[in-house]
């Protein structure tokens, strides 16, 4: 049952990263920033969701809430317009933001880890909404109109003027997140997690503390989400309750599903697709009465999402692998291996 451990080869990763590193030379500043940088940090957020889903069998909607906590904490701790403006150094604020968000994630995990499947989905959804309402109401922290112009580390320069430093920073973080999560998934912790996903009863019988393991996984994912939250503030140059509302929660889920819920790579494939759709569908879309048009982006996104869910639960990555699978018989998506009904299903 170790099938879903990533099988990305090093050369492929190397080539992709090298190609990505060259992007600022090829593309306009706008494209590097609004499409690529955004895809990278959205991908990190989606990766935290995919990690939980692929290896832990937990589809969490709390990731946006957690990254909201990180983003808001960061924005409040540095010099900014609005919020607490505590004027800490951006790096210390970054670390503090991640620590706070991980602590919140741990707390959420303790409550949610005993629930599974669809219950888990709903409870984590409630967490995200809770964070949104919290910051909507506690305006001392969200600065009435959001927290604007936070002080950023000098490393990323002035993203508004030159997007390249932030882009490279985000790229490095994304690669580290990818490699880190892949490493974890192959380490004993990750293997045990996959065991819990597939055979919780047996794992419990083997002496594993199922709940504690799930809490740990959730906390690790919270760490990744927290990183994405800080990156989002660096990218947007602001954070407001509207940045972490329910629509954003659903968008992150859509990104993960479009990319593919069971492969980490899917996070970035989904994020890039989302960013491209978001930006360019406004030009491509023909106007059809009130039903379709440039301002109906959400309809298009919803339809794409629906088609992906209907045709390929493995997302674009899964679709690709299936198309390939029709030719040379590759191993296919990992999930197929586990297709015989789980004993638990029969027990139902």
């Amino acid at each position, binding site marked *: 049952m170790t099938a879903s451990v990533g099988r990305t080869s090093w050369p492929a990763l190397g080539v992709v990263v090298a190609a990505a590193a060259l992007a600022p030379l090829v593309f306009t500043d706008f494209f590097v920033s609004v499409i690529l940088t955004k895809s990278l940090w959205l991908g990190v957020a989606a990766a935290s969701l995919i990690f939980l889903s692929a290896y832990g069998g937990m589809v969490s909607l709390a990731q946006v809430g957690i990254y909201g906590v990180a983003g808001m904490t960061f924005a409040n701790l540095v010099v900014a317009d609005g919020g607490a403006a505590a004027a800490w150094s951006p790096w210390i604020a970054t670390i503090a933001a991640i620590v706070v968000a991980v602590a919140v994630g741990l707390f959420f995990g303790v409550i949610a880890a005993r629930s599974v499947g669809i219950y888990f989905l709903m409870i984590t959804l*409630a967490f995200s909404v809770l964070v949104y309402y919290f910051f909507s109401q506690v305006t001392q922290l969200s600065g009435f109109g959001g927290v604007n112009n936070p002080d950023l580390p000098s490393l990323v320069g002035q993203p508004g003027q030159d997007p390249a430093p932030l882009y490279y920073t985000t790229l490095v973080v994304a690669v580290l997140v990818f490699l880190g999560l892949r490493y974890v998934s192959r380490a004993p912790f990750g293997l045990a997690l996959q065991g819990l996903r597939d055979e919780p009863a047996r794992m419990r019988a083997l002496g594993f503390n199922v709940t504690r393991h799930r809490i740990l996984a959730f906390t690790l994912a919270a760490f990744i989400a927290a990183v994405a939250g800080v990156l989002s503030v660096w990218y947007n140059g602001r954070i407001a309750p509207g940045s972490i509302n329910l629509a954003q929660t659903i968008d992150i889920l859509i990104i993960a599903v479009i990319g593919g819920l069971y492969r980490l790579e899917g996070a970035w494939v989904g994020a890039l697709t989302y960013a491209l759709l978001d930006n360019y569908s406004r030009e491509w879309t023909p106007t059809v009465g009130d039903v379709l048009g440039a301002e109906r982006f959400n309809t298009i996104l919803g339809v794409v999402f629906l088609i992906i869910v209907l045709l390929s639960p*493995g997302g674009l990555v899964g679709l690709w692998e299936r198309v390939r699978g029709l030719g040379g018989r590759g191993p296919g998506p990992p999930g197929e291996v586990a297709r015989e009904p789980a004993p638990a299903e029969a027990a139902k």
Partner: protein
Amino acid sequence: MSGSSQTPLDPAAGGVTDARGATAAEEAVEARAAGAPRRWTVTRVALGLVAAVVVVWLVVKASEDLRQFAVVSLNGITLAALFFVVASGFTLIFGLMRVVNMAHGSLYLLGGYLALEMQDSWFKEEVGGLGISLAGEAGAEYDLVGWLVPLVLATLIIGVLGVIMQQVFLRWNQGQDLRQALITIALSVIFADQMLAAFGGISKDIKTPTDWPESIALPGDVRFGFFRGVIVLGAAVLIGLLLWWLITRTRFGKIVRAGVDDREMVSALGINVQLVFAAAFFLGAVLAGLGGVLGGTMISLAPGEDTSFLLNSLIVVIIGGMGSLAGAAIGALALGLVDAYGDVYLVFGDTDLTNYSILLTFALLVAVLAVRPLGLFGRPA
């Protein structure tokens, strides 16, 4: 479970259904944990103390201004009535089919909008005017028929729409509950955007019949809205009783109850499960649509109300326990009262915390989950 025979036909189901394979197993495990005898843990004692403090606080506040307390309590109860109507449909569908219909809020809002459109275009008594597109309904008058017919028709249309949704999108992947939830999320995104395009972003409301009183006078100089206090509350009680009768006294109800406990066995007994599923989805959607018409008359219709009522339904059933009608009633009451009291009584001396009242809802949620992970009346699948 009934869907398992289909899943192997769909190899692409992949990792997504892996997740739910684990779900089933975990649920079984959790069942034992949740079914364990109640213990007096620290958590329980602490929560009991908090509850006692809350009650004392309410008594103190109520004695200060009894009239306000009556109004606020009525607000909470009537809001709970509306939540119950909507959430009972949600919990019914889940209880039988394990489908979390994330488009339930969309059905709610669409039901309201459809009724509004019908009332507007069929029953508006022309007040003269130029008939230009800006002519509003604000001065129009409606009789009972002008409210009742849109209610019935809109509700039925939403029911049929629910069945279509189930047949087209959900029937063939029964048992893959996560995938079904994702499908309904996708549908809700599309619905929300299309409703914005069709009905605009301005709040609208369905008008009550003109000869209904605006408010009723209660003992102690308390005024309360007639529609809220009589119609919505009455409808909720009636629906509660009807559902209770349906679930406990009819063949359909027996099948539903059996299905909640053991779906495998129900289909093995040769019952046409598909028909029952379609009927349950119809009923669930009807309740959403009916809620939309009641809510659109009692409060208003606007973009965002779909997600807001989906969330309310989610919270109600998470508190009450998914699939349980009694749970939906208790959950709705808890949510409605916490909302209403929090809006007014979160004042401690000079510290006014009423702006944070919405967070109380979540405190309630967390407290319930900490003690009963499956909700107050939740039973393991």
